[in-house]
């Protein structure tokens, strides 16, 4: 099981109490605590996107620097720093891919808006708990190949639906259908209250 669900063991349940407050107070040891808790997860996510160890290291550093510089905008009484951290990590990695590929900004995803702390204030502390991660992994495995492919192209490569159509030579309408169906399937599997 460890082989097939390795990332499930990357984080424990619940947040580190007081961690966000310590980050907001810019206590230097807080960054170490944050890294100890999420560093492996962040590195794994970034490496999955950029496929280069040295680049992944640089981007992990950028990610934690951004959190360090922006932690004061994070509400301490609500929200989970983990999902926010992962959103920043993903954005940094995809931003790098785009710069390497020379992908145009027009039509590409604008991800900066998705890492604003305000979007994470009502996300519960244990979002990244083991059971939840196991369920999302299991739900992904139940997707058919096309549905899994479009979600991975979107999440791990930052492709827009138009870019997916171009990359896969599949009509844009079909891509849109696959994306919506994939999200719907995940919602059903996860029991999420996400409007379809």
């Amino acid at each position, binding site marked *: 099981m460890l082989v097939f669900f390795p990332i499930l063991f990357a984080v424990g349940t619940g947040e580190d109490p007081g961690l966000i407050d310590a980050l907001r107070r810019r206590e230097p040891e807080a960054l170490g605590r944050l890294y100890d808790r999420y560093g492996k997860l962040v590195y794994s996510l970034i490496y999955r996107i950029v496929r280069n160890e040295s680049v992944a290291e640089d981007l992990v550093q950028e990610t934690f620097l951004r959190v360090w510089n922006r932690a004061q905008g994070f509400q301490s009484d609500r929200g989970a720093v983990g999902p926010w951290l992962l959103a920043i990590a993903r954005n940094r990695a995809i931003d*790098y891919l785009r710069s390497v590929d020379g992908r145009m900004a027009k039509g590409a995803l604008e991800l900066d808006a998705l890492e604003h702390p305000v979007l994470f204030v009502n996300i519960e502390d244990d979002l990244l708990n083991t059971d939840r991660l196991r369920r999302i992994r299991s739900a992904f495995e139940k997707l058919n190949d096309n549905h899994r492919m479009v979600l991975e192209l979107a999440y791990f490569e930052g492709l827009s639906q138009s870019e997916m159509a171009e990359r896969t030579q599949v009509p844009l309408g079909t891509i849109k259908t696959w994306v919506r169906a994939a999200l719907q399937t995940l919602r059903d599997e996860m029991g999420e209250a996400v409007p379809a």
Partner: protein
Amino acid sequence: MNCEDLKPVYPLYALGVAEEPERTELAAHLARQCPVCKPGVEEAMRMVSAFSAVAPLKEPPKRLRRRVVLLAQPDRAYGWLSWALGAVSLCLGVGVAWFGIQDYQQERAISSLQARLERSAGRAERLEQTLEFLREPETREVTFGASGERQPPRGRVFVNATRGVLLLASNLPPLPGDRTYQFWLIPKGANPLPAGLFRSDAEGEALHLISQQVDLSRIAAVAVSVEPASGSPQPTTTPILVVTL
């Protein structure tokens, strides 16, 4: 566009694939703290945040923690760089105050600039590591590629038994998104050892540093091949360059 129209867009927005005009419309609802759309997008963000679980777990190098922790100690770790970043940030702040720019578009522009500054900090550290490697007296250089040929990959390999191997290459052909360059250490009389993945930049140049001890008496050559994006345990294509050490 009302909130009901935007509900199907929530998961697409959270994933980052919402299209215009829905994306801008929903962003505007979020900017004004729309009581319907904001919780809807937050719910979608809950699900998308967990997609990271699909990434296989990979152990980061030990030195990475040190690099991250040093970020919180600017006086000792970053010196001039922190001052430079601080000065630029101050300029940005003054600029923002002067022009009274507080709308959504300008906030994004500042965010983009800050991301570039942070990236510069990371690159500066990487270059510093490279310079340290090159300064080592034990580091020796091997060149490859004939300058007379039309567009061959060429460059230099630097080897250091205690610090590792550094590849500086140019004229690398561009690769499709599903392929990557893979670096190999080739022991004498044994199969190649994978030594990391890298990409070239838009000019076909690449810098790839392997920071580990290398028994140079056992390594006959280094090589680069084109592999699937996830890398290969052994080369699956003919190497585009092989450099005898």
